[in-house]
């Protein structure tokens, strides 16, 4: 079982982490008071409990960093995609491309 402070860890990061480690363990996430409590269920009966906790905590930390980077760079990402697609000609593409002549 692992507890995460709700003031510093987003539920989304926990859910993404649970998804990412699904080959090694399944994770039950519950909110209680100021914490999220994550219960780890190893897929292998031989799994080392401490190792699984480290693995999940590391994944959560990476997901937090990923979320921060994604949020910070989202406007630029949208700008780059807009610039890229504005000059593809796709918008004005021949509408007959996918229709019978």
């Amino acid at each position, binding site marked *: 079982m692992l507890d995460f402070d709700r003031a510093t860890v987003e539920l989304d990061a926990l859910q993404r982490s649970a998804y990412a480690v699904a080959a090694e363990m399944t994770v039950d996430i519950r909110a209680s008071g100021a914490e999220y409590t994550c219960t780890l269920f190893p897929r292998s009966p031989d799994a080392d409990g401490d190792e699984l906790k480290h693995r999940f905590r590391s994944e959560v930390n990476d997901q937090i960093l990923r979320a921060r*980077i994604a949020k910070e760079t989202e406007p*630029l*990402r949208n700008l780059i995609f807009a610039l890229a*697609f504005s000059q593809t000609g796709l918008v004005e593409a*021949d509408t007959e491309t996918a*229709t019978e002549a």
Partner: protein
Amino acid sequence: MTSVIKLERSATTLPPHAWQLLPMRFHRLDANSVVLTNLVGEHVFVTPDELVSVADGTCADQELLARLRAAHVVQVPGETLPTELLAMKLRTRLRRLPDSTGLHLFVVTLRCEHTCRYCQVSRQSAAKSEFDMTEETAGRALQLAFRSPSPYLKIEFQGGEPLLNFPLVRWITTEAKRMNAGHGKDLAFVIATNLALLDDEILEFCAEQGIHISTSLDGPQDLHNGNRRRPGQDSWRQAVAGIRRVQQRLGPDRVSALMTTTEASLDRAAEIIGAYADLGLQAVFLRPISPYGFAIRDRGGANYDVERWLAFYAAGLDQIVELNRQGIPMVEIYASIIAKKMLTNADPGYVDLTSPSGIGIGALVYNYDGDIYASDEGRMLAEMGDHTFRLGNVHDSSYADVMLSDSLLDPLTESIALSAPMCTTCAFEPYCGADPVFHHATMGDFTGHKALSAFCRRNTGVFTLLLRKMRDDAYFRDLMWLWTR
């Protein structure tokens, strides 16, 4: 008077928090190394601490910051060039999209005289001509193929063994060239054959028409014949003799060979590559077996997991690098495809490593009976009774019916990597692809659960291997650059 323009490198020093992050993702390669990739897959190796300091705005390493700026991972606020360049590179990577579909596979017969243990299709005996494509069906398929907006059309003859219906191969080639007079497309032909039936007439026709030969060679004789059975147990001898004949008559660049990895191959990477080198072949594609159709039967040879295949791949790659060091040129095809994605902005268009997926928009398959499939793997699934990827039939479907069918659009839209869980934050997304057929076949939906996906594990393993080798071995990095050409 001589004017001298003096260029001085501006020694830009960035104080803390003086840069902003551009869209980037990271992947931990090992305990002390992280790879950062930008929106188009350009990459930089950093330490875990450096990653945090760059993200926090506290990095004081000016050399690192300069590298990150050069790789468009960070920029100085107010700069516009990095975003404009990233947009241009992104557009370059996606430029194939409006030009669908370039590859058209004609299954001219299901008949085959081989009984390969891993064959995915329900081959028919060599005498049953009711499993041959007719000229009428082929003509309808050609009409659809020429509706493609692609300026390039590659027609690949598949089977069964296509040389068992060589008259139709000849007819399609001639008819396609006649039709192309009014289209002006860049037209290419490939026969995927085991070469056992190659004769002078066929060879002469291939020479006249500029047809490329793609064949199967699983490695040394015992391994090849164990996988690829035919009366007389002489598949290897026929393939080797055929490769030599094609090399001599058409030229060494007009024949290529593919291998399929079975359990029996896993400890024999060096011998397999040696067999290719002995024949003067300069490229080998270390392919895992496809989990479709009859290949997944117990005796199909597919009883190994991703980790064992990755070990085989790594051993094979080491052998190929060693050959190159000795002056014997040899390319590993999968690594060369990925090299183009990692080191250039070109999209090699390899169907399994594109997103949106290459099904339908990268390749269409016309089965012997006129049924149209979104990919060859989709046809293999149909052989097992799953018709999910059947898009229509050449006799009653229009081009619009095929390209706008739910059978094509649903898997395409549901599997796009940029919006798939885990792929959205994966540093390898620019290198990888969406494979809705694989995930449908193995997991029951087009997207698949990436944490449990063998496709994801295999490709993540290959990307990690190639990046580590490029990080640690300057010779290998040079080789990867060479393979992008």
